[in-house]
C-alpha cells in the first residue's frame, strides 16, 4: 500500500456557499491521532484514561436505543461495572431495526487465500465511500471487525458454516474478495437477537436498568455538557427527566424522512435532531443511500418499500428490455433484446457494482422509459441463469427466505419469473458529527451506529452497516467513554430535577402540547407522505440545483401547513401513536430542509450524492480541490445554517477516481 503524503491540501479555504441563509463556520478538530492511520487505534487506546473498577459504578451512563450499537454499548458498559440506563421505544430490545438487515457483516479476518487484508478492507471502505469519510475510522473498523465476529458468534449468532465447520463467507457489492459473514438472509436478526440477549443478561445481573416503551424527546445540557435526556413514557404519556454523566445516542438513521423507505415504520430522526437543536453538529445530511434492490412501490397506500438483500446480486443478473416501453413478459424477451446494463458498462464489477452506481444506473434506465412492471418503475433481477447452473435447490439454500418474502409481497414466483427491483431510500450516511472518540460536538454526548456519520463517506459499502454498529457498541464506545468520564470522578451529577433538567422538561412538554393544540384536519401521515414525494423528486437519486431549490420552497410551505392543518387525535396521557408520529414528522420537516440545503451547497457529485451538474461520461464527478471535507451543520432553527467543516486527508488510500469498469 502506498503511503504518499496526505492528499488533502495543507490549507484551503472552503468555498463560500451559494445557498441563501448559509454561512461558513469553523474548522473542526476530529481529534485524530497523528501519524500512521494503520496504528492510530492502538496508540489512541493506550492514551485513553481508565476508570478504576471500584469507581465505575459511580458513573451513570444513559444509552438511548437498543439496536446493535445501543445494546452492545449498554451491555459492554454494564459488564464493565458502570451504572447503565438503557431506553428503547420498543416493547422489547430485540425489535430494534438492526433486526431487519439481511445480507451480512464484513470482517477483515483474511482467513482465506483470496488476498484480503485489513488494508484492503480499508481501501474498499474508503473508496466505496467516495473519499468522504475518515480514513482512520475505517482502520479502526477493520481492526475490531475480527473480534466482533468472534464475540457475536460466542454469544449466540449461529453464523453460516462450511461443511468442515469453519465460518462461511460470501462477497458483497463493491468488493472483489469474500469477507462477508452471514446467517442465511437473517444476519441482522441473529446479531440483534444475540446482542439484545446480552443486554438482558446485564438486566438480569442488575448492571443495566432497561426502560422499554420510552421515547427520547429532548437532551439536557448544562454547562455545555450533555447531562441527560427527557423521556416520554409511551404508555402513560408521562414526561420525565433522567440525568447522567454521559449520554449515548444509538438511535438509528433517518431514511424514513422519504416516507417510502426500507426502514421500519417507527425509525426516526427525533433524538439526533433534538441533539442538533441543542448544538450538536449534523454531518452530511444529504448523503442517503438508495438501495438498488428494494421492491418497487406498487400503490399509493403502500406503507414502505421492502428491501431484498444485496447478496442476491451475487447470483442474480440485472437487466431491462433494450426497447423502451417493451410490454412483453420478461421470459418472452429473447436474450438479444435484453440489456444487462451493469455487466455492459462495468465489466469488472458487473452486477456487484457499489450501491450508488447500481441505483443510479437503474434510475437512468427507468427515466429513459425502459422500466418494467405495471408502473414501469423497476428493473429485472433474474435468477434464470443461476438456477440453470446451480439448480433450484442450491439457490433455495442461499436465498430461500428472500424468495419467499418476495412471493409474499408480490404474488410472483422468482424461481419462474425475474424479480423486479427499484432504488429505495435506505441507509443514511449522514448523522451526528463525532470525533475519533465517537463524541459529538457536545461534550458527554456520544453517538454509535447509523445515528452518527462515521465510516461510510458518501456511500455505504454493503455489509458494513452491521459491522459499524457492532464495533461502535461493543468495542469503541466502551473504550472512549471511560476516557471522558475519568476526569469527572468526584464531580456531582446534575440532579434529575436540577434547573437544566427542569428547563428541558418544560420545553419538551410545551412541544407536545403545541402538537396537540393545532386542531386541523389531517393526520401526521398525510404530511409525511407529501414530504416523501417532495424529497424523492428534489433530493433523490439524481439532484440538481433546480430540483433542490424547488424542494426547499415546498418543504417550507408544507411545514407551515403542518402547523395549521395537523390533527392529533386523542390526548397526551395514554398510548397515542398519532402523537408519536406527529412529533417525528415535525422533526422530519425541519431535517428535510437541511438535507436539501446540504445537497444544494455541495457543488460536486460523490457517492450517493449525485448532482446532475457535476458528471463526466455519466459518472459522478468529485471535486477534491474544493470539497474534500465533511460538512457539519449548525442549524439553529431560524432558517439560517452554518457549515462547519472537517478537512479529510487520505494517507493509506490516496485520493483516486472511483472506477468500477
Amino acid at each position, binding site marked *: 500500500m502506498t503511503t504518499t503524503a496526505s492528499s488533502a491540501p495543507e490549507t484551503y479555504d472552503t468555498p463560500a456557499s451559494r445557498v441563501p441563509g448559509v454561512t461558513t463556520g469553523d474548522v473542526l478538530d476530529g481529534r485524530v491521532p497523528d501519524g500512521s492511520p494503520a496504528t492510530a487505534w492502538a496508540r489512541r487506546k493506550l492514551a485513553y484514561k481508565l476508570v478504576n473498577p471500584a469507581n465505575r459504578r459511580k458513573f451513570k451512563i444513559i444509552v438511548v436505543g437498543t439496536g446493535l450499537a445501543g445494546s*452492545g454499548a449498554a*451491555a*459492554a458498559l454494564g*459488564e464493565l461495572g458502570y451504572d447503565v440506563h438503557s431506553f428503547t421505544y*420498543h*416493547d*422489547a430490545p*430485540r*425489535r430494534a*431495526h438492526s*433486526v*431487519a438487515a439481511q445480507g451480512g457483516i464484513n470482517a477483515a479476518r483474511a*482467513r482465506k487465500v483470496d488476498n484480503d487484508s485489513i488494508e484492503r478492507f480499508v481501501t474498499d471502505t474508503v473508496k466505496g465511500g467516495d473519499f468522504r469519510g475518515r480514513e482512520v475510522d475505517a482502520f479502526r473498523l477493520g481492526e475490531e471487525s475480527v473480534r466482533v*465476529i*468472534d*464475540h457475536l*458468534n*460466542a*454469544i*449466540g449468532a*449461529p*453464523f453460516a*458454516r*462450511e*461443511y*468442515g*465447520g469453519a*465460518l462461511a463467507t460470501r462477497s458483497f457489492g463493491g468488493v472483489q474478495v469474500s469477507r462477508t459473514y452471514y446467517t442465511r438472509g437473517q444476519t*441482522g*436478526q*441473529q446479531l440483534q437477537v*444475540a446482542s439484545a*440477549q*446480552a443486554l*438482558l*443478561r446485564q438486566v*438480569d445481573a442488575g448492571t443495566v436498568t432497561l426502560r422499554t416503551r420510552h421515547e427520547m424527546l429532548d437532551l439536557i445540557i448544562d454547562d455545555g455538557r450533555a447531562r441527560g435526556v427527557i423521556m416520554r413514557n409511551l*404508555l402513560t404519556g408521562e414526561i420525565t427527566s433522567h440525568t447522567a454523566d454521559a449520554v449515548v445516542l444509538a438511535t438509528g438513521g433517518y431514511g424514513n424522512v422519504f416516507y417510502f423507505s426500507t426502514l*421500519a*415504520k417507527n425509525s426516526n430522526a427525533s433524538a439526533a435532531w433534538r441533539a442538533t437543536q441543542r448544538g450538536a453538529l449534523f454531518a452530511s445530511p444529504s448523503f442517503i443511500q438508495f438501495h438498488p434492490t428494494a421492491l418497487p412501490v*406498487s*400503490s399509493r*397506500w*403502500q*406503507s*414502505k418499500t421492502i428491501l431484498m438483500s444485496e447478496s442476491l446480486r451475487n447470483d442474480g443478473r440485472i437487466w431491462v428490455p433494450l426497447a423502451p416501453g417493451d410490454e412483453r413478459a420478461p421470459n418472452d424477451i429473447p436474450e438479444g433484446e435484453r440489456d444487462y446494463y451493469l455487466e455492459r458498462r462495468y465489466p469488472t464489477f458487473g452486477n456487484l457494482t457499489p450501491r450508488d452506481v447500481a441505483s443510479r444506473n437503474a434510475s437512468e434506465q427507468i427515466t429513459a422509459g425502459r422500466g418494467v412492471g405495471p408502473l414501469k418503475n423497476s428493473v429485472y433481477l433474474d435468477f434464470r441463469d443461476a438456477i440453470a447452473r446451480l439448480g433450484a435447490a442450491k439457490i433455495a439454500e442461499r436465498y430461500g427466505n428472500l424468495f419467499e*418474502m418476495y412471493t*409474499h409481497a*408480490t*404474488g410472483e414466483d422468482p424461481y419462474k419469473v425475474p424479480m423486479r427491483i427499484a432504488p429505495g431510500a435506505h441507509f443514511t450516511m449522514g448523522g451526528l458529527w463525532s470525533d475519533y472518540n465517537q463524541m459529538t460536538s457536545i461534550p458527554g454526548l456520544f453517538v454509535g451506529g447509523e445515528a452518527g456519520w462515521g465510516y461510510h463517506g458518501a456511500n455505504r459499502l454493503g455489509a458494513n452497516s452491521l459491522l459499524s454498529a457492532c464495533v461502535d457498541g461493543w*468495542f469503541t464506545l466502551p473504550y472512549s467513554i471511560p476516557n471522558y468520564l475519568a476526569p469527572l470522578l468526584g464531580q456531582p451529577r446534575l440532579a434529575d430535577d436540577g434547573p437544566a433538567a427542569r428547563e428541558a422538561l418544560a420545553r419538551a412538554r410545551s412541544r407536545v402540547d403545541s402538537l396537540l393544540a393545532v386542531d386541523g*384536519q*389531517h*393526520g401526521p*401521515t*398525510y404530511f409525511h407522505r407529501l414530504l416523501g414525494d417532495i424529497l424523492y423528486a428534489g433530493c433523490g437519486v439524481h439532484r440538481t440545483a433546480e430540483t433542490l431549490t424547488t424542494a426547499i420552497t415546498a418543504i417550507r410551505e408544507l411545514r407551515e401547513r403542518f402547523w395549521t392543518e395537523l*390533527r392529533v*387525535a386523542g390526548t397526551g396521557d395514554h*398510548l397515542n*401513536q398519532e402523537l408519536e408520529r406527529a412529533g417525528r414528522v415535525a422533526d422530519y420537516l425541519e431535517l428535510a430542509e437541511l438535507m436539501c440545503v446540504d445537497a444544494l451547497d455541495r457543488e460536486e457529485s460523490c457517492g450517493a450524492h449525485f448532482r446532475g451538474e457535476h458528471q463526466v461520461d455519466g459518472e459522478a464527478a468529485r471535486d477534491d480541490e474544493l470539497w474534500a471535507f465533511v460538512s457539519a451543520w449548525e442549524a439553529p432553527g431560524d432558517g439560517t445554517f452554518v457549515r462547519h467543516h472537517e478537512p479529510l486527508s487520505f494517507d493509506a488510500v490516496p485520493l483516486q477516481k472511483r472506477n468500477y469498469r
Partner: protein
Amino acid sequence: MKLTLDVWRQDNPAGPGRLETYEVLDATAEMSVVELLDRLNEQLVESGADPIAFESDCREGICGACGVTVDERPHGAQPNTPSCHQRLARYSDGDRIRIEPLRSAAYPVIRDLVVDRSALDRVITAGGHVAIAAGTAPDADAAALDFAAAEMALDFAACIGCGACVAACPNGAAHLFVGSKLAHLAALPTTKAERGRRARAMITEMELDFGPCSSYGECADVCPAGIPLTAIAAVNKERLRAVLHRGND
C-alpha cells in the same frame, strides 16, 4: 374492494373492550392486514375519529412487533405468515373480517390491538443468554460447529418473538418460543457450560406466566418463522437433562 371490519376497541388495560364496525372501500389485494389498518386509520383521522392503536414496525416479517388476531386466528388465515405479510388477496369484495388483539392470559391488552408481551422477555432475561463478556470470546473458527449443526441452530434461532404461538395455544403455552431458544443455544459450542442452568432458569420463569403444553400443534401452524414442532420437545429434553446433570452445568 369493499371490506367490513369488526375491530376490537379498548381504551385502557382496565377498560371494557368492544367490537366496532368500520368499512374500507378501497382495499386492494396487495395490501397487508396492517396496511388495511393504516388505511382505516387514515379514514378515521380525516373524519375526526380516534384511530386504532396497533403495533407493527419493520413490516418485513422480522421484527415481531406486529400480530393481531384475524377471524380468531393469530396473524391471519395464511399459515406461517406474520400480519404484516398477510395479503388481502384471499378476500373478496363485500367480505367481513374480525380483527382483535393477540389473545392470551399472559398478554394484557394495553389499548385496542396492542398487548403487553413482556412475559416473553422475562423468560429471556431469566436465562436466555450466554455468559461471555465482550473481549473474552474464543476464535470463532476454533470451536467446531459443523454445517448441519449450524443449520439446525439456525432453524430454531429464526424465532422473531412475535408471541403468536402463545396466542394460538388453547393452553396459552410458550413452549415453542422457549424451546426454540433452548434448542438454538444448546447447539452452540460456546454455550454448553451453562446449558443446564439456562434450562432451569428459563423453564421456571416460563411456568410463572404461561400454561402447560398439550402438544396441540397450533403454535407451529401460525409461527411466521416456521419454527418446527420439535422445539417443544426441546423444553422437556432440556428440562430432563438439567435434572440429570444438576450441578454439572
